[in-house]
């Protein structure tokens, strides 16, 4: 449902919520850049740009919400894994609540005017 809303102007909307989306896909499992990008796309954010995800990861890391570690790979270069730290989890909780209340408000607004999901 939310996905269909985003598709209206996904690129613009994404800018506001990409941080939250990245934090969310890292909630249960650490991941490296390409891995995170794939999770976002599998979740339906098909229009997310590669560079946007890497840039966001770098910014979240610089803000102290993520930690990184390097895992040697049998095939190819070593991979840099990102993981949520305590501050990242706090941020995810707070942003998640903000988004939910915002989305609920928007849903209600549209529902009231008889617009189908």
């Amino acid at each position: 449902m939310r996905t269909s809303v985003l598709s209206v102007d996904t690129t613009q909307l994404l800018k506001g919520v990409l941080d939250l989306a990245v934090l969310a896909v890292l909630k249960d499992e650490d991941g490296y850049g390409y891995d995170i990008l794939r999770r976002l796309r599998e979740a339906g954010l098909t229009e997310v740009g590669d560079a946007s995800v890497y840039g966001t990861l770098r910014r979240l890391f610089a803000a102290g919400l993520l930690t990184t570690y390097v895992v040697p790979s049998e095939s190819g270069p070593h991979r840099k894994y990102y993981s949520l730290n305590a501050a990242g989890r706090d941020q995810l909780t707070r942003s998640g609540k903000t988004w939910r209340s915002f989305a609920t408000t928007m849903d209600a607004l549209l529902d009231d005017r008889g617009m189908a999901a």
Partner: protein
Amino acid sequence: MTVTGQEITDYVDRVRAALADLPPRVRDELTEELPEHLAEVAAEGEGALVDRLGTPEAYAAELRAAAGAGEGRRPARFHRLAEAWEQAAVQVRLLDRQLGPVLGHVTVSDFLRPLRPAWWLLRGWLAALLISVLVDGDRPGLLPRPNNNASAGLLLLVGAVAVSLWWGRRSAGITGWQRQLHQIVTAALLLFSFAVLAQVDERAGSDVYSGYEQTSVDRRYDRIEDVFVYDQQGRLIRDARLFDQNGVPIRLGWPSCMDGSGVVPEMRNTYPYCPERAPFGPPAPPSTAPPVSTPTDSPTPTASTPTAPTISASPAPTSTP
């Protein structure tokens, strides 16, 4: 079309060039995962990277915006310089890859990397030489000798090499001003090493053999110690000089006797070295020789003039030196 490693490297280079205005550390952080990411993208399907990801410049702009990196703080007048520098760096990386196969490696860097410890040793030695020269103001030799003290030089050498090795193992991750200082010191040492090479080469060229005279010799005459020249009358000629057809002095034998002052004379190109050892020495006094066969006058060393001295010593050619 399959994406090649070359295409990936070029894409990375162009992204980095587009981010050239950012501080190096930020740019490195932003692009460190890019090669691996591009390899993943390349592996997942067909089509050129530019078709799938957009131009490297657009990618860089998106990366910059998402990371909140903004514009670099570099002053505008340095922009052109930075761009030129970046272009040069791209060219160097290109050469690095192109010349690699010549050395049997993917890149020239791959070839040079295992040689770094050798450079660290050399760098320590050069630093010791440089310190020695700075202390003394003397011309550099091959060993550091501060104040002409060889043992202090050895200490200095060992210390400098140890510091250089330590620094070499540590310097891989340095950034910022330390990195710049490192590069400046390296450049200075390389300049200095060239000066040392020039000095040493100059001295090597001025060794004791550089002024030798050309002479004409032949191994067949190795056993000849001295040369005695007699004139037509059988008189020993002193300080005779021998030359070949080219006017080159002929050197034979060697001085083996002492002169009047008890010193073996120096090698020279006049013969004989030892006139007193002449095989047909000074003419015998008339009293000891049978007067019958020995004419006392000079023109008499028999008729067969040149071969006269070969007959025997006693009827010696009556020569007076």
